[in-house]
């Protein structure tokens, strides 16, 4: 096709196309030679791109790791990964909104893969008193043999011990202090049972815990589930929530939708820890903003870099044009060079992230002890394990590829109107 006379203007465009196709593999080779020719500049530019990629993927990996750690930790204190409840219990936690047949439900859920342990709870707000003092508190009837296995609350700075049999109570240290109660004292609990009856329970305080979260330490009393069922006149297979502990947060996300059914609402960790979800979203937005700003600054430096490249190589471009290369070929070649530098940066950035996250996800990062109080209040575990964030990867890589392409194109467009003679003359 290229032997068609190029004097006919309408045919020019058609004539060029196969020309580009033929030339493209060579353009890649030349582009590679060009970027290796100025090693220092290539590496500095690639390092900038790598930093932007690293910033995004590594920081997100740390954040995702920290959040999954905090969600898991929080779940294992008291909330569980999944809770099964009466459909309206979450909005109206009244004593009547209970679920029946908990033993069958527990047996069914426990048999599923990815489930670690399942236990039931009944709960109600009541007045707790000791001697002359009274305070309001959330009374939770627990299957204590099971809670002792999974709930880390039972091991948090405990004075005394956890519940081991009927007639015992395990309470928050702030509540104990407010009630003026010490271990071995009797706690009187008065609440409202089903259908307005009086629920009365006397229990021996066998232990207190300090979680560092004021709302847990100030207002929670745990008693055995059977004691609760008798006092609040619930049936022996009746409770308010079935708590599911999954093997991991990821497992729980798969499990949660499978467990709900008519008359049984399944709440996953997002429902149970909404403030954690919002914190996560806020952090995500914050990191995106920071990444975009870092990307803009890096892209400026890529524009700069290509301005220097074009300035330096103008005589060379003139020569190429003199022997028949068209301006758009040169632009394409520069775009390929930009792509290669970008790929180099991406490999470097992702490589460092992969190695860093790979090592740290095995060893974990010890969180600073000085921040103990702060981290405890956010339910952070003592060690943090980063989790590679593919979400960050899918954002960072396209942004940087498009950004560098644009960055190379801006100074490159000047070449459209360049004439071989002027370009060659600029060498003098």
């Amino acid at each position, binding site marked *: 096709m290229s032997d068609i006379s190029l004097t006919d203007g309408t045919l020019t465009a058609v004539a060029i196309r196969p020309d580009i196709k033929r030339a493209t593999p060579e353009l890649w080779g030349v582009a590679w030679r060009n970027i290796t020719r100025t090693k220092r500049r290539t590496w500095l530019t690639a390092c900038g791109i790598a930093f932007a990629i690293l910033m995004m993927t590594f920081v997100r990996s740390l954040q995702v790791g920290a959040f999954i750690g905090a969600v898991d930790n929080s779940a294992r204190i008291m909330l569980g990964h999944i809770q099964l409840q009466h459909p309206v219990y979450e909005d109206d936690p009244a004593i009547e909104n209970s679920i029946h047949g908990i033993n069958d439900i527990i047996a069914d859920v426990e048999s599923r893969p990815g489930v670690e342990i399942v236990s039931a709870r009944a709960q109600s707000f009541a007045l707790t008193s000791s001697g*002359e003092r009274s305070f309001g508190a959330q009374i939770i009837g627990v299957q204590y043999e099971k809670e002792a296995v999974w709930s880390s609350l039972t091991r948090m700075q405990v004075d005394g011990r956890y519940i081991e049999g009927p007639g015992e109570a395990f309470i928050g240290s702030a509540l104990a202090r407010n009630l003026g109660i010490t271990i071995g004292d009797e706690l009187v609990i008065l609440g409202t049972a089903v259908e307005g009856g009086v629920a009365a329970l006397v229990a021996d305080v066998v232990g207190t815990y300090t979680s560092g979260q004021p709302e847990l330490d100030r207002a929670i009393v745990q008693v055995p589930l059977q004691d609760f069922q008798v006092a609040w006149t619930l049936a022996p297979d009746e409770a308010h929530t079935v708590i599911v502990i999954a093997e991991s947060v990821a497992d729980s996300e798969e499990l949660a939708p499978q467990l709900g059914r008519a008359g049984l609402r399944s709440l996953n960790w997002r429902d149970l820890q909404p*403030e954690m979800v919002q914190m996560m*979203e806020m952090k995500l937005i914050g990191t995106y903003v920071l990444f975009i*700003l870092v990307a803009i600054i890096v892209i400026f430096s890529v524009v700069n870099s290509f301005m220097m490249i074009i300035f330096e190589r103008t005589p060379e471009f003139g020569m190429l044009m003199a022997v028949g290369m068209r301006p758009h070929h040169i632009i394409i070649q520069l775009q390929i060079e930009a792509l290669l530098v970008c790929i180099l940066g991406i490999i470097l950035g992702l490589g460092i992230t992969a190695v860093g996250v790979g090592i740290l996800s095995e060893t974990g990062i010890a969180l600073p002890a000085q921040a103990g109080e702060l981290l405890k209040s956010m339910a952070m575990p003592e060690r943090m394990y980063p989790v590679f964030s593919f979400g960050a990867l899918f954002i960072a890589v396209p942004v940087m590829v498009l950004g560098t392409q644009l960055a190379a194109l801006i100074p490159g467009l000047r070449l459209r109107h360049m004439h071989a003679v002027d370009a060659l003359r600029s060498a003098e």
Partner: protein
Amino acid sequence: MPITLLAQLSLRNIVRHRRRNLMLLMAIAVAVLTVLMANTVIRGMQYDLREQTVSNLNGHIKVHAPGYLDDPSIARGFELAAGWEPKINVSEVEGWAARIRIPAVIMSERETRGIQFVGIDPAQESISFLSKAHYDGQPLNTSSDRRIIIGKEMADQLETQVGRRLVIITQGSDGLNREAGFRIAGVYDTEGTAIEKIFVFTGVTALQNMVDAIVVTEVSVRLVDDAFQLSMLDSLLRFFADLEVKTWQQLEPLAAAFFLFAESAIYLYFFIIMTALIFGLVNTLVTSVMERVHELGMLRAVGMRPGAVVMQVVIESTFIMMIGVALGLTLGWLIFQLLPPVLDLSSFSEGFEKFGMPAKIHLRLHVSDMVLITVMSMVFGVLASLYPAKRAVKISPLEALRL
């Protein structure tokens, strides 16, 4: 070689490559602008948090009877004579407030909740959030007002409203429980729901009558400026020698930790943004050195000392940085003037409130931070010029001229 001559040379080199350096200047300006904007948000959050902590009944400094913090009961109250306000550091004080704060249980027809029952003198509460809250109904009138005001969140939980009666049970000074009915005068609405769930207010004299003790459990002082906190603490420790005197930082260690953490966040942002910038800066400087191999070789041949070569590159880098920083700061300042003074994040507010942070951020721009950014950027500029300068010194006059 005189420094003015070096500076002149550097400046000329910058002007020579206008387009390239303009690009670099823009990158620096964007970086500085970004750091400054992040700074106004972080500073805003930091100071809002302090303001909120201080106005949440803490004051800058608070006085309790010994043991009250562990056992907050009326038995840990103390007496105050009429005209008790200490006449110390008067010009530094915005106001004093004496209160009773004791745990209690509140009951509506439908629900029961644990609360902090607080007796106040409404005239003194200009120093706390109560003066800024929005009310449905009315606030309390006097210290002998026998009605109560409750938080909006509490009203929702108790399914009650203004004008209804609620029963409150609390412990009297003899250790026995007192139970009394109170009419709701008003429902207060504050930023965040944490306070609204906990505090119920009535007149301090009314509460004293209920518990049979003419005492208070706390005295708060709010200062005109945070800077007076140390000297005031010192004076109060002597004035209330028998009592426990604590700062808001001691009472709310979590908020204090966040306040300090914000300082490091400012540096963190600076380093991330500046690191992104430094690659481009080094790149441009090295190129500008390599382009001038001939020129630098010539200068060396006619007797320019290596130190002067280094100086020239450092000055060039510092110049570019200085102009970029000035541009960024000016732009940042202008944008700050155009922005609304309050950034509203209420769509994310639950996440904020979990950690006691307000949903609205009052943006703050500190001149000291602008100075800090300028100084740190200059240091970065000098650091970025070290490698290019080293490269420049390596140029041997003979080789350079032979090229």
